[in-house]
């Protein structure tokens, strides 16, 4: 990580801190959705079972949205071009975005998690810190995914199309609505290559079965590989000299 990465991350944090309305929405929107989840699920045992998966999907959704739209905005207002003409490397730009938005994704994750646990009273097993660490990993993946797809999108319309294309299939196939094992075989195959399947599986094992991070090594490895892969792909796609 170079100094430029930290400078870019610092600038992103500065920007969002000065944009009070966005900052408030970052905190309030997860609370509204978590409240809706809390009041709309009638059975407490169903809520306990579904809440971890819903949490994982929401972290993916918010992280993807926040990073994706912001990165695209950087392109449309011309500041990305200005950065690309400066001495910073592509990895510095993508890394700076990852670090900057990760902070806000972590804030959203914490808000969502503590609200569901302490206000909505979702029961869980396992260590709190281990659950949070895993959720942050999902957040890192979401930020990397948001960055990658916003690099691919040329305008806001294309980015908006990526939201249903990337988020909705993962929501249906990750095991939130019904178990992956009960899906048709070809859908199981598809579910098993999507990162959210591992996010939901890992968080369920931590929160419902009280397992440790060491027990969900496969899930952690897949999510980390996705994050690193998407980060590298973003930097490659965001090439200088692109017409």
């Amino acid at each position, binding site marked *: 990580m170079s100094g430029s990465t930290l400078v870019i991350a610092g600038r992103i944090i500065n920007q969002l801190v000065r944009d009070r309305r966005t900052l408030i929405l970052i905190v309030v929107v997860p609370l509204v959705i978590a409240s809706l989840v809390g009041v709309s699920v009638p059975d407490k045992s169903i809520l306990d079972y579904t809440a971890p998966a819903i949490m994982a999907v929401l972290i993916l959704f918010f992280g993807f949205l926040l990073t994706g739209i912001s990165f695209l905005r950087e392109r449309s207002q*011309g500041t990305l071009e*200005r950065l690309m003409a400066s001495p910073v490397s592509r990895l510095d730009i993508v890394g700076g975005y990852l670090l900057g938005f990760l902070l806000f994704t972590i804030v959203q994750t914490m808000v969502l998690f503590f609200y569901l646990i302490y206000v909505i009273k979702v029961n869980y097993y396992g260590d709190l810190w281990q659950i949070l660490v895993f959720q942050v990993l999902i957040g890192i993946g979401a930020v990397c995914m948001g960055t990658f797809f916003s690099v691919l999108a040329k305008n806001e319309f294309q980015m908006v199309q990526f939201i249903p294309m990337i988020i909705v299939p993962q929501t249906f196939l990750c095991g939130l609505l019904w178990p992956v094992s009960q899906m048709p075989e070809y859908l199981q195959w598809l579910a098993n290559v999507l990162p959210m399947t591992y996010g939901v599986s890992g968080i369920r094992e931590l929160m419902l079965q009280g397992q440790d991070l060491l027990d969900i090594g496969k899930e952690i490895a897949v999510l980390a590989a996705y994050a690193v892969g998407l980060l590298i792909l973003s930097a490659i796609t965001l090439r200088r*000299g692109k017409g």
Partner: protein
Amino acid sequence: MPEKSFSGPAVAVDNLSFNYGRQKVLDGLSLEVPAGISFGLLGPNGAGKTTLIRLLVGLLRARAGTILTLGKKPSPRTAHLTGYMPQLPSLYAELSVIQNVEFFARIYRLRNRKQRTQRVEEVIKLVDLWQDRNKSVTNLSGGMKQRASLACAVVHNPPLIFLDEPTVGLDPELRVHFWDYFQGLTRGGSTLIISSHTMDDAAHCNRLAFMRDGKVIALGTPDELRQATGQAKATLEDAFLYFIKHGGVNKNVR
């Protein structure tokens, strides 16, 4: 003062061609810009001025031909030696003027905190925004945004500066202010490459390249280009029309 270790031409372009898809934007373009002058790229919209500047700062990659800026191919390794002011202000809207300039100062490797703070203050004062330094860019007028954008482009005191239509949308007073500042930069040893489609701007440049349809149709000082028309009171506009009518590069002027 800018680095002056390089003694050759500030910019050397040879037989440069560039396409956007099937559309040819630059067609076998060649030019050389000596160091320490203001060099104007003049031409109508669509002449290829912005594309040429984007190639020179390394944002686009040439399909054919060669580009050397300060003797090297444009790349992130040489980017700290160049300043770039895009056509749009391209600033972070939520941040203040001083935060924007400070950010670009850090990105362009002004690492010493004390020197950076001094330079940021100096450059904001130069563009006459010191009173408004804490205002968010969102709350600035168009002219103020242009000035803030200029401050970001020159904060690291680069020897080679690319300014893409820097005076568009400026009132006449501010335009004069900008040109005074540009002339100060060339006196300090910087080379300025300025694109414009107004002949007002052209008259301020030390040398000009008239561009049309991706080609340079004439090169020379404003006086040389005016004289080439053979009319005693020819304006640069007359000269531009003359070269369009007679086609191709005027060898005498070049």
